[in-house]
């Protein structure tokens, strides 16, 4: 969404021509108020005056309304209509409204939700197969990141193409050593590994998007294809014939990540679960995939004791290297490793940019079934201690900025401080010493100057 805000108006307008994009944007909206406003305005012929808009919102939530409207404006969903002589009014942008209406009620000949292929080309592919395929591809990408071609049990390792490795390197998740294709994972990459799958996919897709400019791909096409993916149905095949050249290229690239299943020779492609959960906010699907996807078939393998000892029943190098990030591993047996979480090991992880919450959620997600019998799953003492160890490293909080001092009188100080507070740059102030600290000064400097000039004029 932030990315969308940063785009130019023209680009956004082009994007909003696709009903699927609009629907995806609508689904991703964070606030319910935003959804309400959009829905209310959708079938309204004329712009609505600001005063009327205010009357929809309870007086005590004016602030939320303010934030929502600004956000919608930035997304170019809401626009201000100003007629001379009439009060300020809002309406939905035309393209957005049209597309959303199309998306909700159907109709139109836009094909933006993909073209379902009615007669299956060759053998239809079952959902289980798709899940299996997505898991295999995604795991091999993760496996590649930790530097070993890790093979899921009972299948051949998947060879990753240069496009994939380049993308990972571009995002600084890995660095590629000059000779050979051996990858070295970076700290950023480790933090990436600890996220849940949906977040990982989004990060990959964002990288893909940022990179598309370098590869001379049309950004609008890339984006609308991504949004379209989110609205496809699992287990359904879709025709490739109506895709643009860029988008056909993307199908190939996304196949590597297991987001799409595609056979170059066939005219159809299948979205996998990784794709169809992209723009939905249903957690159930997400967790369904994370239990199958993230690591191996076993549901949980970690036992954490109250004495900070950790036992992991695994032989996968991926899991071991993740564990190694925040614990000291001592013994390794063929099917199990044992180690201990210590102050040093947690501090080390925190120094690498991994948060205590990430560690805890990782342990929680992969807790051994035996541990699931207790509630809470993880020993609270250990969880608290991990958090404490993290805070310990943050004994001092630092903020870059500017200290303002030597005000001539109280009024000058008071006005400036108030202004700083209003524009949200104030970090600290001391009323008795007439001192305050801000993290940005440009706006404030001009305010001080203007204020000075005004007062000089008044004084005369």
């Amino acid at each position: 969404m932030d990315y969308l805000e940063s785009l130019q108006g023209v680009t956004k307008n082009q994007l909003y021509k696709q009903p699927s994009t609009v629907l995806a944007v609508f689904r991703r909206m964070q606030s319910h108020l935003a959804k309400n406003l959009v829905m209310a305005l959708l079938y309204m012929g004329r712009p609505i005056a600001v005063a009327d808009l205010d009357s929809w919102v309870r007086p005590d939530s004016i602030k939320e309304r303010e934030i929502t409207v600004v956000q919608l404006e930035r997304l170019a969903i809401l626009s201000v209509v100003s007629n001379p002589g009439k009060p300020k009014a809002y309406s939905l942008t035309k393209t957005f409204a049209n597309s959303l209406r199309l998306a909700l009620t159907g109709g139109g000949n836009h094909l933006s939700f993909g073209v379902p292929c009615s007669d299956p080309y060759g053998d239809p592919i079952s959902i289980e197969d798709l899940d299996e395929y997505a898991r295999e591809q995604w795991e091999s990408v993760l496996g590649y990141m930790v530097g070993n071609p890790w093979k899921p049990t009972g299948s051949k390792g998947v060879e990753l193409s240069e496009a994939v490795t380049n993308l990972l390197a571009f995002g600084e998740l890995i660095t590629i050593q000059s000779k050979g294709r051996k990858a070295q994972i970076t700290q950023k990459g480790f933090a990436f590994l600890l996220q849940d799958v949906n977040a990982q996919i989004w990060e990959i897709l964002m990288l893909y998007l940022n990179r598309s400019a370098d590869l001379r791909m049309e950004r609008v096409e890339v984006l609308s294809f991504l949004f379209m993916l989110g609205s496809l149905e699992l287990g359904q095949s879709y025709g490739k014939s109506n895709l643009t050249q860029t988008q056909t290229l993307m199908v190939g690239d996304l196949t590597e990540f297991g987001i799409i299943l595609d056979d170059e020779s066939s005219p159809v492609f299948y979205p996998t679960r990784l794709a169809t959960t992209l723009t939905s906010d249903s957690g159930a699907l997400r967790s369904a995939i994370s239990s199958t996807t993230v690591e191996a078939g076993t549901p949980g393998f970690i036992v954490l004791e109250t004495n900070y000892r950790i036992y992991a029943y695994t032989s996968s190098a991926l899991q071991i290297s993740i564990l190694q990030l925040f614990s000291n591993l001592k013994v390794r047996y063929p099917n199990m490793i044992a180690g201990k979480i210590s102050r040093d090991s947690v501090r080390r992880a925190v120094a690498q940019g991994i948060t205590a919450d990430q560690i805890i959620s990782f342990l929680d997600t992969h807790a051994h079934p035996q541990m699931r019998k207790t509630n809470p799953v993880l020993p609270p003492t250990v969880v608290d201690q991990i958090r404490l160890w993290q805070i310990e490293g943050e004994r001092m909080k630092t903020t870059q900025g500017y200290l303002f001092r030597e005000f001539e009188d109280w009024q000058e100080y008071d006005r400036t401080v108030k202004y700083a507070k209003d524009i949200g740059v104030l970090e600290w102030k001391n009323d008795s010493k007439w001192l305050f600290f801000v993290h940005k000064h440009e706006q404030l400097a001009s305010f001080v100057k203007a204020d000075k000039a005004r007062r000089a004029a008044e004084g005369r």
Partner: protein
Amino acid sequence: MPKASKGVLVECDPAIKAIILKIDQEKNEYIVEDLDDTHLMVKDSKVQALKAKLDEELKNAVSYPDEDDDSDRG
């Protein structure tokens, strides 16, 4: 006319501030302004050095239980 000076605002609890003051006493090379009990202003270029010094100081001041305790007393 008010003046603005560039620097880094450090927020910490009074105990940590006391340690920072002690570190600064040697050469006076870190602190620009002592603001109040929990705030200090520090030179831009010296923040990293100060952080390192503080970590060192804390390591000496506080002792932690043996990390390599391998017995089962836990």
